[in-house]
């Protein structure tokens, strides 16, 4: 099956409810290996929920999600396997405050991948250098700026050597002067061929690196297009309204 071999993430007729509230409605999405998807939409549209379903931080109730050939069901083994292959970067970084930057990066490789400590540290330093903060390795997260913390969070995810990276509004909690340093790292990652799904409102970033932009509203995918066409020529009135509001 060449179709599944090429697919990094497949969502087929996915539905999810919070109690009575239908938060994801019939989501169909196929992400090919190496593809970079930007997901945007108004607050509460279900975009974060959707990508959180991909590494099972949220559970879906109907439909199929297949990540890197592994079907996401209640099977705990599959969930662990998926989480090993999928890295995630959060809006609020979620670094571990009681561990140094280096320990944040080596923890999962040592405890989940069973890497020897020296090897895990070498890998961590490689990625900390890639996100341009190797000199902060021995500090604690609380001693770093927001932009630096988010870059550590990216390095921490990369240390697990993931095949897919999920970004959940990675720049939304940052001061304006720090957004660029994080986006630069993400662009660098995209140019390295990483499969990426990014929930973000950074439209310049979307234009620069995305293969596809997805617009969500009220739990549904409303529009999906390549970035130039998406921004220049939005089809749905809801997309038009949204773009008018965020692009001045």
């Amino acid at each position, binding site marked *: 099956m060449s179709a599944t071999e090429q697919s990094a993430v497949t969502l087929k007729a996915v539905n999810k409810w919070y109690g009575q509230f239908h938060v994801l409605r019939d989501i169909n999405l196929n992400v090919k290996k190496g593809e970079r998807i930007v997901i945007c939409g108004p607050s509460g549209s279900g975009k974060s929920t959707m990508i959180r379903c991909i590494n099972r931080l949220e559970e879906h109730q109907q439909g199929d999600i297949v990540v890197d050939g592994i079907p996401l069901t209640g099977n705990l083994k599959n969930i662990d396997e998926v989480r090993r292959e999928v890295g995630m970067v959060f809006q609020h970084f*979620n670094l571990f405050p009681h561990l140094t930057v280096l320990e944040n990066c080596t923890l999962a490789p040592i405890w989940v991948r069973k890497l020897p400590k020296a090897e895990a540290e070498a890998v961590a330093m490689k990625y900390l250098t890639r996100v341009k903060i190797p000199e902060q390795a021995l500090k604690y997260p*609380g001693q770093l700026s927001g932009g630096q913390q988010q870059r550590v969070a990216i390095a921490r995810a990369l240390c697990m050597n993931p095949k897919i990276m999920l970004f959940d509004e990675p720049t939304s909690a940052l001061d304006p002067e720090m957004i660029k340093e994080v986006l630069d790292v993400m662009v660098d990652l995209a140019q390295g061929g990483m499969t990426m799904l990014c929930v973000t409102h950074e439209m310049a970033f979307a234009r620069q690196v995305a293969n596809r932009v997805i617009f969500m509203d009220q739990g549904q995918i409303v529009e999906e297009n390549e970035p130039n066409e998406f921004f220049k020529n939005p089809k749905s009135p809801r997309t038009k309204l949204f773009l008018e509001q965020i692009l001045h």
Partner: protein
Amino acid sequence: MVAFVRTQDAPVAPPPANMTGAWAAAKQKFFPTPLSSVAGVIIAALVAWVVWTLIDWAVIRAVWSAPDRELCNAEGAGACWPYAFARFHQFIYGFYPVEERWRVNIVFLLGALSLAALLIPSIPRKGLSALFFFVIYPVLTGILFVGGMFGLTYVETTQWGGLMVTLVLSVTSMVASVPLGILLALGRRSTMPIVSLLSTIFIEVVRGVPLVLVLFMAVNMFPLFMPPGVNPDKLLIVIIGMALFAAAYMAEIIRGGLQAIPKGQYEGAQAVGLSYWKMMGLIVMPQVIKIVIPSIVNHFISLFKDTSLVTVVSILDLLGVVQSSFNDAKWASAQTGNTGYFLLAVVYWLFCFGMSRYSQFIERKLATGHKR
């Protein structure tokens, strides 16, 4: 509105004379206003009076050497220290056979050494110290205290007493209460309804009953659940009762700490692929323990003093042994009781103050670099 541009810097001057010097500092601290000056003097006089009265009784008027109670009974005599010296060994070992007390000394010495190795941060190999203190040491203590094997004489627990029993009770229940409390706290927060319900019931039932009652019930009712003929050791039942009692409180302390950990920490841990127990052990609990250290030590201090309640089920801990010695015909005098109680207060206070200082030290140490 006139625009202003500074052309010359204002001079940098030393503070005025009435702000510096020892007298200024003293005036600011102790005599800032007339009212507080008066209050300060009165309180200082009161403290001086109390301290003087104690010193007068405990040192100046005290009897330091005497063959029996005669001198202590004299008019105006202070503390009766010869009584304390004469009974000193009993206060520590209770009625443990004299020729076997070296066993207790070894346990005390090993305990002090391994506790120091565990608690002093600059001593390396914490894993090894922990293995010794939490696994090997309790087994060793059991063998040495009880005996009946390896050529050691068997000593019944009814012969144990004094500081030795106080330490066995408090250290065991403290050490056992932490893991039990963590499990109960996690159980209470579990999404599995049965686990959560059982943990909640246990915590609420045990917390809702006075410790004295727990001790009475443990000693008198527990044997009802045993098959006839099986007679479990009283001290052992009391230790188990106290440990479970302590665990219920510890569970609520830990649960309070768990509530302070943001949801993002769990998600961060899950996203990098940690399993539930690794997430709890490596990410959540280290942060929880740091937050709840003051409460844990507070609980330990109160538990240490609560061990004195075992006298109600006729176990002679430190308080019990000291009290029982008051009736000794050789030493019963007007000041014997006072001397015993004073000594008890000093010993309990030293242990509790030590715990308190250590917790403050470790809090400061853990605080570095944890600023968010």
